[in-house]
């Protein structure tokens, strides 16, 4: 069977301690380490494993953004993707526009499966996969921790608040990955060299005839109210006394 598309977002590395700019105009991203959004990395790992099982022929990674996101696409290629597509734009896009762009890519690439992270750890929106599935009119399996393909259908286990939910759906479909889907492989040096020779095609956003809109205007960015460091107690007895004093035990 054909092809899997995986979406990679360039995002602030999850180890970075985010700081809000003093003037409230955003968060400090200058000089900060950027990586592939961790959930997207898991999505890619899953696609690669499906290909290694012989259940798909090709894994294509897609990223939308400035040329800087080529770095994340190269990481994807080094992990094992076959080729990459960059949709070039200077705009910072909302999930609805990202979904619209992805629909265009889907129309030309015709994948059997699109895998992406359930959320990006910068905006924490958790929307793009669902919106893509809606616009495409196809099934969605969100927050997936287990995925099995069988011909023209697939089964997914979803991590939901009540536990684990299993659904079955027809392909093509949109899958968003949760953390326990797999553990992504480490990229090895020779793979990084090899990735440099893999194809990376760039399309300008304008060519796709999509005009991004700002629907959600960010007026201000604040630091969250800080929790203060509290009191240290010496032992269990003192802890219980403290809880009793606060009417908590």
């Amino acid at each position: 069977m054909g092809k899997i598309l995986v979406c990679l977002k360039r995002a602030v590395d999850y180890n970075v301690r985010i700081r809000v700019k003093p003037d409230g105009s955003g968060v400090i991203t200058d000089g900060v380490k950027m990586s592939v959004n961790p959930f997207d990395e898991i999505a890619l790992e899953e696609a690669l494993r499906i290909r290694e099982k012989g259940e798909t022929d090709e894994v294509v990674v897609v990223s939308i953004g400035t040329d800087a996101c080529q770095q994340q696409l190269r990481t994807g290629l080094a992990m094992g993707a076959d080729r990459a597509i960059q949709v070039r734009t200077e705009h910072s896009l909302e999930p609805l526009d990202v979904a619209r762009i992805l629909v265009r890519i889907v129309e030309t690439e015709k994948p059997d499966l699109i895998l992406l992270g359930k959320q990006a750890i910068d905006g924490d929106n958790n929307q793009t996969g669902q919106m893509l599935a809606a616009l495409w009119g196809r099934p969605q399996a969100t927050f997936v921790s287990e995925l099995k393909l069988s011909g023209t259908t697939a089964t997914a286990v979803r991590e939901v608040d009540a536990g684990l939910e299993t659904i079955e759906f027809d392909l093509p479909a949109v899958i968003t990955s949760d953390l326990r889907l797999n553990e992504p492989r480490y990229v090895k040096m020779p793979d990084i060299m090899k990735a440099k020779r893999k194809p990376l095609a760039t399309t300008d956003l304008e060519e796709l005839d999509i005009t991004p809109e700002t629907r959600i205007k960010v007026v201000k960015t604040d630091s969250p109210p800080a929790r203060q460091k509290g009191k240290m107690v010496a032992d269990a007895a003192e802890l219980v006394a403290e809880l009793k004093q606060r009417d908590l035990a």
Partner: protein
Amino acid sequence: MGRILIIAEHDGNELNPSTARCVSCAAEFSGLDCDIAVLAKDGQRICEQAATLDGVSNVVRVDNDANEHALAAIHAPQIAKLAEKYSHLFGPSTTFGKDLMPRVAALLGVAQVSDIMSVISHYSFQRPIFAGNAIVTVETPAQDKVVATVRTASYQAAAGGGSATIELRVLDVELPSHTRYRSTSGSNGGGRPDLQSASVVISGGRGLGSEKNFALIYQLADRLGAAVGASRAAVDAGYIANDHQVGQTGQIISPDLYIAIGISGAIQHITGIKDASTIVAINKDADAPIFEIADIGLVGDLFTIIPELELLL
């Protein structure tokens, strides 16, 4: 003037408390009436529960065999149809609402606001980004419908005592058959209170060391009538099921008392507990980051401290 529609979360039998929290958020929109939509196979019982929530005008009952299980692909077109009469559509920021509401928004061709934590005006809200390390104030266009999820940890459940009318609606919408529910397996917390509504939550982390040792957390929880939570590391290691995970990718909770045992306090974990009134941390490492935010900290070995606490509590 507008009107708010909240999409009820339920399991076919009981209304999930997340719905009552959305009602409290809706109450912050002065001048807007609030309705609740119940999509179910047979919504009678759920509708009766929803109708008692204080501040709700109307409960819209949509019965359909296809609504037996909450599948976003099946719910979304129905909600998009119901949306005609509304200016605001809300779901809880639970896995139910997160799965569903973006699909609704896309069908309506509008943006979605995720995780509303406070309401500034009918079209301006605050929400967390970067795992809660920054809070943005956003504005949405007044000509668009507002589709949003409500950060349930930011709101108390609305009180009962209301008496909304229940209105049966039959929707003429074509529903897809491409997505089929199979099953749900949950740990159900072994009869313990659930994470979202418990006033006390005790969580264990990697420090517990094994699934067997995790029983210490259950014992202490039972002593206090508490719900049991866990760090991602504890879930990944198989000490406890995924529905107990607290944090950025687990549940965001706001109990009166949170006790973290053998948890280091990674930012992704802290995100889930910031709204707790009191945080207690027990950890053998005095430099563990959890102590930076704990109201009461105790440095020591959990294997000696837990048995002591059991005797003292």
